């Protein structure tokens, strides 16, 4: 169990305790204290787990995970962010999925642990929608787009054969997932395995995360497009995602304001939320059984704010990468 951590003294205790409370106990929990300036290492050590610290900070989550991977001797390797906790049976559920032949990785359902600020609420709806609908459809066709980096388990042999997590893009989880597909291996999404990360609470933190994700996606498309073309369903999913991140984002950001000005009707801006009832269907399909109906309804407006900001970040990333102004500085964010 690899837990990369940089200045996570406040959250890492919860993560370790949730790992220690699993129905199937991990062989070893290794916290990689990647040059933290706070008490991350001490907190982890006090809870009885192995703590390793590179002499020089690796500068990225992938680098920290690779540092620990060299010491892994178990059949399975799990990576979990230091600000993420798990449902008690999460590991058990993922292990069951990895029993199937050809499956090299499995990932779970992500739900924000705290849902208070605008950004947390927006992310809550985004995850509920994406994990209850998109990801389950992708899994049916055996091509989940990403085995999320915050909580995924791998067969160690496959992971090591792929050289661990690459640092060539800012989305090492997507890079690894697509590399596994290109090598003919399978990835599974297990909707019953829940994890709860702490999502960005402020715009400053959220913007760093969105920048990393958007650049990471474009970098992976550039890196893998030839290989992805050979993977059925994934190629279509990536193409529509790329379209939505580029041209659809332009239309989304510009068309409605232009129409509103042209027809002198601010009602045109209702177009931004016209899909709200449709979005609520998959969100409520998860929220109602979890008893979170009110939270979901109250969080809906925040989603539209996040979606608009997300569109801006994707467009900036696409143009930056196309113009050769790539962004490769890893900034913390789950």
């Amino acid at each position, binding site marked *: 169990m690899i837990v990369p951590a940089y200045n996570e003294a406040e959250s890492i205790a919860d993560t370790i305790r949730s790992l220690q409370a699993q129905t199937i106990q991990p062989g070893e929990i290794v916290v990689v204290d990647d040059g933290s300036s706070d008490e991350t290492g001490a907190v982890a050590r006090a809870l009885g787990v192995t703590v390793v610290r590179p002499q020089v900070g690796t500068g990225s989550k992938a680098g920290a995970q690779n540092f620990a991977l060299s010491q892994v001797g178990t059949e399975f390797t799990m990576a979990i962010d230091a600000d993420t906790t798990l449902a008690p049976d999460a590991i058990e559920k993922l292990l069951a999925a990895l029993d199937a032949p050809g499956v090299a990785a499995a990932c779970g359902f992500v739900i924000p642990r705290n849902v208070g600020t605008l950004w947390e609420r927006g992310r809550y709806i985004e995850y509920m929608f994406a994990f209850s609908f998109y990801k389950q*459809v992708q899994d049916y066709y055996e091509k989940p787009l990403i085995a999320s980096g915050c909580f995924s388990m791998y067969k160690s042999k496959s992971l090591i054969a792929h050289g661990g997590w690459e640092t060539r893009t800012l989305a090492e989880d997507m890079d690894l997932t697509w590399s596994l597909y290109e090598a003919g291996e399978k990835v599974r999404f297990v909707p019953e395995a829940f994890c709860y990360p702490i999502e960005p609470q402020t715009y400053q933190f959220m913007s760093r995360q969105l920048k990393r994700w958007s650049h990471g996606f474009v970098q992976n498309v550039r890196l893998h497009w030839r290989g992805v073309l050979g993977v059925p369903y994934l190629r279509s999913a990536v193409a529509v995602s790329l379209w939505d991140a580029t041209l659809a984002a332009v239309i989304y950001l510009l068309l409605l304001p232009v129409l509103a000005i042209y027809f002198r009707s601010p009602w045109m801006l209702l177009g931004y939320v016209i899909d709200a*009832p449709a979005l609520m*269907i998959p969100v409520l399909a998860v929220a109602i059984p979890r008893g979170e109906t009110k939270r979901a309804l109250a969080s809906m407006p925040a989603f539209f704010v996040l979606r608009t900001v997300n569109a801006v970040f994707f467009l900036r990333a696409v143009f930056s990468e196309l113009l050769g102004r790539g962004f490769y500085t890893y900034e913390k964010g789950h």
Partner: protein
Amino acid sequence: MTAGLPGVGIGGMFYVLSAIAMPFHAAYRVVKRRHDPGLADEPPVQWRLVFRQLAIALGIVAALWATGWALGALLAEHPSALGGMESTVSGRTAPNAIKVSALILSFGTMCIVLIAVQVARLVLNSRQHKTATVSGVVGALMLLSASIANGQNARGSSPLGARIDAAERTYQAGDSAAAVAAYGTVLALDPNNSRALFRLGQLWRHDPKRSLPMFRRYTSVVPNDAWGHMALGDALAADGNFSEALREYDEARRIAPKERDVALGHARVMGRAGRSGDAVALLQKWSALHPGDSEATREIDVQRRMLGSARAKHAPAVELTAFSGGDSDGNRSYSAVALISAQLTDYARLTATAGRKRSAGFLDALYYDGTVGLTIRPVSSFRLEAVAGAVRTTRNESFEYPDTAQVVPRTGRGKGRREQPAPPAIVRTDSAIAENLAIGSLRAVWKKPGTAGLVDLRASQALLDATPVLVINRVMRRELAARVDVPLTRRFRVRGGARAGSYDAIGESNTRTSLLGGVATSVTDAAEVAAIFQQISFDHATTSGYFAPRVAQLAELVTYTEIESDSGRLLILDAGAGGQRYAEFGSAVGQWKPVFRVMAELRLPIRPGTELRGALDSYNSQIASEAAAGTSWRYASASLSVRIALR
């Protein structure tokens, strides 16, 4: 992490359709498993997941429909909420606000994206297959010849050496295809063979995507070969990556500072990168050390001319244009346009235009337009142009307008060349007043340097002004256009294009779609011949003054040639000849009739940045590609302009 924008664009539709397809896919899997024992180990279908996702997808569709219905009902009750669109819905039964046409457009877009992915996959597969097949066959032949040579040639004791010799002989004989296969075989046996890497880079010099990896590998295998870094630098420059190209030349000069080819090549790449000043300085330094080098002296002159042109090109400039045109219907157009432009940054240029225009014939329309435009060229292969402005139509006080709506006799002043009557045009005389109309365009052009690949996307809004009736009826064209040139070989390319737009006039709206396809070939670097087929169709007939056939087809052979003299004089010729036929609404498609057109433009440089331009344009056709005034039409125009760099 997530990718894309959940709920927006075609992604949502893709997953809804994927979910709806799940039961059918699952049933297929079940049937397949029953009939194929080899699939017995496949995991069973998760029917619960299938029906759950299907239910969600159907719920999403139902929610979208209900939202559109509720909005439609709301807008029918409060039509003022729609502002400028009020008149189009008031008084009607409440429609669903989410239009079927919008859904069809989204579905069509998604299909195009998915088809493009499949085409890309097939192209990639066929290339790989072709390369593998050719390499395999030729490799086998090489192996065979090497085996035969084994007993005859001392070097034959090394199969690799024999193959390298054979590949080199093929290369020297000029058989590029066989040389590629032969060196490909060498490389398969010895992945770091420097000769093979360098030769393959040279053989693929017209395809930077293939040559660059070869030269990169070569420079990593032989890092101290200045020619390797030069070759890599040239390939990078051909790919438009000048910064990296110059770094490679820096390295080449570090390795071989006294090598003349390195110095001259470095200067040429500097010039192409827009650093002609540095190139001149470098060459002057070289010439001072090697005074007898005539090629360096010539290159200094070339770079100085480029420097002068670049400075003039980047300098603020004024351009004045006078235009006059007329057609066989008696319509005449006159305009005077002033343009001023200035460079904002290294890659952004601002332009502003102001024009006075008059369209005269049966009626008379006077109008003015002004625009502000920004052209951004962040890299040499990409250009973004944005123009926004306005047209101000005026009432021409010197002309007596009819008091009521008038039917215009389409034969104008009696030229009457057409063979069948054209539909009448009605002038909405109440519109002959001063009015401001917004115009603009957004265009993105991607053209890879050194290739014929081109993507040209454009959105525009413009006032049709070919005749005064069009101006007075305020016929505005709002259009999306796309053109793509896909290179098949170095000389041949496939051309495709599509345009879709609305023609909105006072009291009337129409839509026009146009599809274009053909093949083009470069006869020389400056001349192209293309065979093009184009089909245009309108939604319905019109009385607003433009010709709107049900369908019009044009098959045309076109040529485009640029002839440039050493002194910079440039002649551009664009001519076409072919056949054209059309069908009006309610009529069958007519006979093919000949169509001719020619455009010629001459640019005469007076001094750097200042030039005189003259252009002639002429058509002879049943209908024109844009908004013709009739069914048999001749048109000619001439323009004269002068561009003056201000420093």
